[in-house]
């Protein structure tokens, strides 16, 4: 089922090809999930890799905009909140550019045949139709669920319908396969 949605005031921001109508076909839930996954994949070497930074270096501290709630930056877009909050060994999250790098060029040194593993959309499954979906990704360094699942930065398909319930992991459990080494003898 597809629901047409009017995007008021956004015509100017919408890419060529459908800008003239001002109307966008919104896909069903599965499509929305895939769309979210696609946007996510654009900036990541593989599912779970730290995203590269999609904007230029403004010379500001990252946390000025990527703060606890995120921030709208005129002319650029919405800077989502940082998902890193409660990591036990969070020293790394104090130095953003240790993991997130700017893209200064779009060339390659030599061609690569590397293809990263994509997001597993089936992993966020529900045990029964009414059950809460499982968390389809690792939680480590993604403890602030609201960064991606609530507010203006949350994409359709992964946006929470109950933002008032702030203790997400009471009902949603993560899939953490860490340490189960399938190719490791003796363990």
């Amino acid at each position, binding site marked *: 089922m597809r629901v047409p949605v009017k995007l008021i005031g956004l015509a100017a921001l919408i*890419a060529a090809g*459908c800008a003239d109508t001002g109307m966008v076909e919104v896909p069903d839930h599965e499509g929305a999930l895939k769309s979210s996954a696609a946007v996510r994949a654009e900036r990541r070497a593989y599912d779970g*890799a730290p995203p590269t930074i999609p904007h230029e270096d403004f010379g500001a501290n990252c946390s000025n905009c990527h703060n606890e709630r995120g921030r709208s930056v005129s002319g650029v877009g919405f800077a989502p909140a940082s998902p890193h909050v409660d990591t036990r060994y969070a*020293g790394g999250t104090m130095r953003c550019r240790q993991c997130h790098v700017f893209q200064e060029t779009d060339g390659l040194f030599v*061609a690569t045949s590397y293809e990263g593993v994509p997001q597993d959309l089936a992993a966020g499954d529900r045990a029964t139709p009414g059950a809460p979906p499982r968390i389809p990704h690792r939680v480590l360094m993604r403890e602030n669920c609201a960064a991606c699942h609530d507010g203006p930065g949350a994409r359709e398909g992964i946006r929470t319908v109950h933002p008032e319930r702030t203790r997400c992991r009471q009902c949603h459990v993560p899939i953490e396969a860490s340490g189960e080494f399938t190719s490791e003898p003796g363990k």
Partner: protein
Amino acid sequence: MRRRRFLQTVGAGTAGFAAFSCADQEHAERLASSETGISEAGLTWSKAPCRYCGTGCGVEVGVQDGKVVTVRGDKKSPVNRGLLCVKGYHLPGMLYGEDRLTHPMLRDGDDWKQISWDEALDLIASKYQEALDESGPDSVAIYGSGQWTVFDGYAASKWFRAGLKSNNVEPNARLCMASAVTGFMTQFQSDEPMGCYEDFEVGDDFILWGNNMAEMHPVLFSRILANKRENPGVRIVDIATRRTPTTDYADMYVEFIPGSDLALANGILHLLVKNGKISQAFLDENVIFKRGIEDIEQIGFGSWGEDGLGLDPSDGPAEHYRFTDQGRDASLAELEEFLADYTPERVSEISGVPVGQIRALAQMYGDQGRGTVSTWCMGVNQHTRGTWMNNLITDLHLITGKISRPGSNPFSLTGQPSACGTVREVGTLAHRLPADMVVMNPDHRAKAEEIWGVPSGTINPKPGLHTMDMFRAFMRGEVKVMWTQTTNPWVSIPNLNRIEREPGDGRFLIVSDIYPTPSTAVADLVLPSAAWVEREGVFGNTERRTQHWHKAVDPPGEATEDAWQIVEVAKRMGMEHLFPWPEDDWHKPMYEEYRSFTLGLGKDLASYEQLEQTRGMIWPVVDGIETRYRYAAGYDPYVKKERGVHFYKAKGYGEKAAFWIRPYHRPAEMPDEEYPFWLCTGRVLEHWHTGSMTRRVKQLHQAVSEGYVEMNRVDARRLGIGPGQMVRVVSRRGELELPAMIDGRGEPPQGSVFIPFFDESRLPNVLTLDAMDNISKEPDYKKCAVRLERA
């Protein structure tokens, strides 16, 4: 150059307040027809240490359809606890550059001819045999690295020392941490640090000596930052010659004139002694005093000088080349007298460091209520007085007793994943044998000959050529056959002009690598190697942790592991008795033989089974239990005391540590009117060493795509150079054109420039000089003089 592009990535421009746009829809449609959403079901996971730096982060490697498709930081690894840096997160791409070497290739004039492994191995064996027969064991060489696995290094060392009777085995780690080896050996008669990474959580003051940890050991720096966040009293001092990303997090930035760190350390010692901040009880119980040769005319700067009397026309006097330090006994009284020259005022004059900062540093080291960790890496090691500087930092900890206890240690960091495990522990430096033994010592040779099952007298008592000599001997034609593995010397050797090579010069160069590099370009025979998890391996990291991984994927084409290549050549030379293990199961027995060198000596390595089942073990491992703090009662099983420390390895010093009195000497070359700028070279976070792996990773290459010269903006304005403009950098040895970086991530002070060395098309080593620390034979990449011109 650094184009500040605004990238039209989906979502960047359209996000606004919409969670959905038509670009999303296009993606959704594209994806609906693709196979997005492959389940994790096909993934298998295994563990491995990261391929890059000496930190040794634990990585979970995800494999699908025979390819590494993903990695995760290993939450269960005590090293990194799930965190990686940007290089580690992008490890998989390193394996899949489309120019991977896949077949042995023999030079055929200007072209290359694919040959079989049998042909290649037969050819290597015959070349080595021919050189041995005609010119003896000094005419053959093998040059590896701190990226050799324990297997590769052990195979090379055993083949050479027990088979070819030559000690011409060297690693590129000579260029990297040889000064740390001589530092620890002269003070403790046993190599490697006493502390472990827990120091970064429990220490109070972190004194970083010429050490840009935020970029070079990012995950360890994160552990310090986490400590600092939880304990606001924690302080970081960045002692450096340029501002770096590390400086942003420092409580105090101490900028010194290149080379004057020797004076600064002595200035701190001066104040500690003068103000009674030394630990007399600790000194009485655990420390002796030594003093070496200090005459600058006698020592010189290794192979570099103005007299031209050495073995090569541009070498220094021959006696500098052959210099050997002679230590004699000294005393605390003699130290006091020696330190009289290093008043804060005089040190400030030499170093440019304000007196107040020298006093602040002395206050930190002298405060018995706070744990102090000193870290250092290339700034101290790649130094014409690198051994001295290592000695002086450890001296600061000895004189205050701040050593071998949690949160108080001198902590030497290594840059390569197995610089400790393979180079220092296996002993692949030209004079070393496993477990701190050396070829010059008859007892050590006898022990090695016994374990290796070769007749007494097999091992040559003469140390082999150190790296700098090895390449010069190769250029002179004295070394006739050389084989390099896991390293890229035609990018990384200083003063590259001196080893410019035209193949067909009568020597034979074999290069094993995973990608084409400037080193394969000058080879006679190129061999394709298996990389990282394409083979089984063991690395040893900076905190003495030995880590094992299993092969996770097949290497491409006919690529094979480096150790296998060595063993196969040895077998073809009639030395199969050195490698008597089954062809399909040789890793474990080879490791267990090597391990037998280490047992009972305080260097005890863990068993293979334990390595397979754990995220690495910190040696000495006795009864299956690791040792987090060496020489410390309650931690180290070799220490029988109930409290305190015992430097039990230093048999020659009465089981005490040696405090070495070391003066300040000027660097080999300093700026003058003709060449008014200091040049420092080094690395960046995104690239690892010569870039042969990381440049093939899309995200890393796109983040930092080419070499540049980092300048102070005042100098740039004075010379009329704008950001991105081409600059010609000229030294006495060569010149190089590259774009200017102004207000980049680092900021050198006026009169100083920095060039990273990852870009093989812009090699700063055509500029650097090949002066060395005459004790460690490690060259100095951090200090030479250049001039700048607008290109």
